[in-house]
């Protein structure tokens, strides 16, 4: 069976055989960079297509079905359209910040990709504080959104950006706290350690009710953090037309759009890693035969399967729920989610100290 780990290792060995170590590192970085950008493009295409098909399914429509086989080329055609479209900069906009904002947002999305483990030994950067790195870097994205809203010189954009700022900063707290519950149980911030700790069972099954609660909080918080409905106040199209990216057109708009979908992928990847064992296959206790069959499915399939299941969940939210109001949104976070998350963290700590979880 072809394993991605073997491929990456054999590339490394082949390069090391003929070149010195600095050159090897440079070439490998270039390969990784190209791969990440390619993954970005593919994710953008796949997720946008998936969202359109999921929404069509829920809205008793067919969705895109003309361009390419069953509409698969629709997003590619849309991207082409956006590429050749004029990127307007409104009069009175702060040109520098206006152009910088989409780049900042997309760069942040790219940076968070680094510590995510796609399968065994297939990871860009095995950093020992992986989870902390993700929470820290993802907070930078809000600056891009605020920048876009402010630089557009549009009142709708400004309102959307201010909403988004309040929202992301608040919900980062409960997202962070729910991530911490797993960190406490594992005792490590490294993504690889967290995955390794779930060899005998995923945390969602091992961790009793506290982990279930933290998973629910995590899903709510990351939905809010990625500005998805029912927390899409930043771009609430019935109130603020398009919120913070009202004035953006062409490829700059596409960058915001791409960053949104990549962010969804990343938060779902983190969720899958923390609660569903990342690329770890599904095992049941001592059912040897069953476990062996599960092991046969490659880790990358497990990983993407879990991630896409979570993405589907978040898309399902978007096409079902109405939007919250801005004060209800902040009430939900500060009055309900945050206290619950804190208490839950305490509970998990007690659980971790006493060892009261399935091992």
């Amino acid at each position: 069976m072809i394993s991605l780990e073997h491929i990456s290792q054999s590339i490394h060995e082949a390069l090391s055989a003929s070149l010195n170590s600095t050159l090897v590192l440079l070439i490998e970085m270039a390969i990784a960079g190209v791969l990440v950008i390619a993954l970005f493009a593919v994710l953008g295409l796949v997720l946008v297509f998936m969202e359109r098909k999921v929404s069509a399914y829920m809205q008793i429509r067919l969705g895109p079905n003309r361009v390419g086989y069953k509409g698969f080329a629709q997003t590619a055609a849309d991207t082409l359209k956006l590429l050749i479209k004029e990127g307007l900069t409104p009069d009175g906009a702060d040109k520098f910040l206006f152009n910088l904002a989409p780049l900042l947002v997309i760069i942040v999305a790219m940076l968070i990709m680094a510590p995510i483990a796609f399968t065994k030994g297939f990871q860009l950067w095995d950093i020992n504080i992986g989870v902390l790195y993700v929470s820290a870097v993802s907070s930078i994205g809000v600056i891009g959104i605020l920048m876009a809203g402010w630089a557009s010189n549009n009142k709708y954009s400004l309102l959307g950006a201010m909403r988004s700022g309040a929202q992301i900063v608040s919900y980062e707290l409960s997202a962070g706290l729910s991530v911490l519950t797993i960190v406490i149980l594992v005792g490590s911030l490294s993504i690889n350690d967290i995955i390794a700790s779930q060899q005998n069972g995923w945390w969602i099954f091992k961790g009793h009710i506290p982990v279930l609660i933290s998973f629910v909080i995590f899903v709510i918080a990351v939905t809010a953090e990625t500005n998805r409905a029912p927390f899409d106040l930043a771009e609430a199209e019935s109130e603020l037309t398009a919120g913070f990216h009202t004035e953006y057109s062409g490829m700059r708009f596409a960058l915001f759009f791409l960053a949104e979908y990549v962010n969804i992928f990343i938060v779902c990847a983190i969720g899958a890693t923390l609660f569903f064992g990342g690329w770890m296959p599904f095992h049941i206790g001592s059912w040897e035969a069953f476990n062996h069959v599960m092991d046969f499915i490659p880790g990358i399939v497990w990983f993407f399967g879990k991630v896409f299941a979570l993405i589907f969940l978040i898309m399902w939210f978007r096409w079902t729920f109405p939007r919250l109001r801005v004060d209800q949104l902040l009430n939900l976070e500060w009055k309900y989610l945050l206290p619950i998350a804190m208490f839950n963290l305490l509970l998990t700590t007690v659980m971790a100290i006493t060892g009261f979880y399935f091992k």
Partner: protein
Amino acid sequence: MQYEEVATTQDGNLVINVGPQHPATHGVMHLVITLHGETILNVQPHLGYIHRSIEKMCESLSYRQFIYSTSRMDYLSSHINNHGCALAVEKGLQVEVPERAKVIRVLMDELTRIASHVLWWGAMAMDVGALTPFFHAFRERELINDIMEETCGARLTMNYMVPGGVMFDLHPNFVKKVKEFVAFFRTKIDEYDTLVTYNVIFQERMKNVGVISAADAVSFGCTGPVLRACGVKSDIRKLAPYDGYEKLNFEEPLETAGDSYARYLVRMRELRESLSIIDQLIDNIPEGEFQAKTKAVLKLPKGEFYSRVETARGEFGVYIISEGGLTPYRIHFRSPGFANLSCLNHIAKGQKIGDLVAMMGTLDLVIPDIDR
């Protein structure tokens, strides 16, 4: 009216223009909103973007012709607008409308009410951010449009009611299709409830928002579901029955809270009432003429004629002054949307901008009805 293009007032409050092109206004309406943060201090509607002076145009049209222009006012209840005009002309002509025509008119009115409320339901859910209900609503509305198309030949601007009756007889499929629709739609209303009405987020967005007291609603001239949500009996079908509504057994839904949720509930209950009216009539359509014999050229005697009907949005009044000629001397329409819009500033003050959109949704504004 002149107003300065200002970004902020002197107190540092934000002034934003919602519309004339904006997804929330469902048409070309222009709201100038003064905001303090997210809180609304003042809402000033600016009208006139699609004013077509329909009332003035009607003065040069004959009594048969002017009815057709009223389909273009509240396009979602064109049958009921036509009905109101036909009633006013019939008052002047002293024509007795055949029983069959009366029943057909009531059936069409109620189907129109359902179609209008269904579209309102979808659009209002879209206003509060849920996009899916809009498509579900259109699935049901499309069935009604198909029924209308068969009988009236049109899907939106029906022009089916004429002085003395209706223009054509019912299509042979009508009864069968309406029965199918009613059975289908009963299951779908329950689906609407589970999808939107019982949703916690939706209820939180609607309750205690946009509250208007009964006294205020009356003084603003609100009618229809907006007034009934304050607990005031105001259904013209009950107060001044026309064309056989007095023989029907239906309830007038009343709520007392006066908030957005009460307006929502009133409309949802009206959907069920309309279904029960259709149920009562669909098997009892009398045989006979569908149109009374009228002269080819209608002339109303000198005088003033007023009729009122209950559209999906409230009371629609038609006021005709005749000098005895071929065309009306003066026509005025009392449109429900205009009066309902006037309370917007009153109920929106102090609320959040997101709720303004929801409130406009529950007022069920149709812009061509406001700007005639």
